[in-house]
């Protein structure tokens, strides 16, 4: 959907809906464990036209590697398509003895970052005030 199509943008989720939503890892992303126990993500890259052209001359990598820190790796492991954002916040606050609000702020920001990079998808469960899907969305 183009950025300027404001009328086609779905309504923002309520806090309750976003906490009930379920993050799911992108199946195209491979995760491998490093020696220190953290997770390294191998993300396939779809090259742009100019990168494809440039690849005839120089080496352009086909994958991108992202190394997650300890807490990032733990949250990545919890994005299994079963646990909701609320469950992940609960697990993180219990494991690292964080205040629930502290855990919530960091988990939500982190998941938003992962989703923005296309590493995870977020399944929003239909609720009472779930926005109706718009045509073409």
């Amino acid at each position: 959907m183009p950025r300027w199509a404001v009328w086609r943008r779905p309504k923002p989720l309520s806090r309750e809906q976003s906490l009930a939503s379920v993050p799911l890892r992108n199946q195209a992303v491979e995760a491998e464990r490093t020696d220190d126990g953290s997770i390294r993500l191998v993300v396939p890259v779809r090259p742009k036209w100019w990168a494809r052209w440039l690849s005839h001359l120089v080496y352009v990598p086909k994958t991108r590697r992202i190394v997650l820190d300890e807490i990032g790796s733990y949250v990545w492991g919890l994005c299994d398509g079963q646990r909701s954002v609320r469950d992940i916040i609960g697990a993180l606050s219990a494991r690292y003895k964080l205040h629930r609000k502290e855990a919530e702020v960091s988990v939500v920001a982190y998941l938003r970052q992962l989703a923005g990079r296309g590493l995870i998808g977020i399944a929003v469960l239909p609720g009472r005030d779930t926005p109706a899907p718009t045509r073409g969305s």
Partner: protein
Amino acid sequence: MAPIESVANERERWARLGWHGIACDVPEDWCPGSLEGDYASGYLRVEDETSVRLELRWESAGRSVLPASALVDNFLKQTRKKLPRGAPEPAVDRGRAVKELAGLDHEAFTWRGGFNAHSVLLVEPDSRRVVHVRVFFGEADDAKGQARRIFGSLAVAPRGGMLEWAVFGLRFQMPERWRLEQSALQTGRLQFRFRSGSDELEVARQSLAEVTLRNATLDAWFQGLFAKSLRGFRTASRAAEYRGHPAMRCGGVLSLRARPLAVFRRRRIATGLAWHCPEADKVFAIRCDTETADDPLADRVADSIVCH
């Protein structure tokens, strides 16, 4: 005045919330959503997962302090004005008292219409502040028990000369003359800077202590956290034990070599204390910058922190 009946659900878990000397109990799953203002006037909003549950407003009463009932009259008048045209007349149940607030000029009342809230408005005679607490409730549950507990636990005056601070699980007490100058409420780190005249005191709490201290010593973490404040001080640190936890203490004076102009000022002395509480997986730190040597203030504040 008839007392508010009902008691809070005992099974519910409660936490303390204190800001600028106004403190009360709130259910553990309610978290501050907005904190604004200073000692004289300000606003605090507390939310649960779905909605705003508590609002706290305080302001300086000025020279002529009106009685609580007159302030409630004004509040109700102003709130009625804000109602949309044609809205049904709100039901207001006034003239109630909270047993625990006996001795303070206060009035508890309930508003139904547009929004539903149990409120208590009180006038604190020493600080001359008007404090208004509202506990919101929905149609299904009138939250009377919760409101009763919150209002009953309300503390607006210093106890033993100390003001209570409690937010996101960090609880401590500060002498009443100290005022909050700056605060940082970040994920994993809470930091408050207080000032009284030229004296300065900072309280900090770092979560994820094990992860933090994996690549740094307690001393290095402390020096990094307060690097700006300790600039120019010639400090010496030593390992110590505090409440059975590994700790570090540091002390020093302002170096004249680093700040030559400080020769015209009184001698500044920095003291610091940090300890790692493995039970809570947190590091607590106090930094104090005063004129007096061996100032017990840092230890006094540290002693008031509930660490685990």
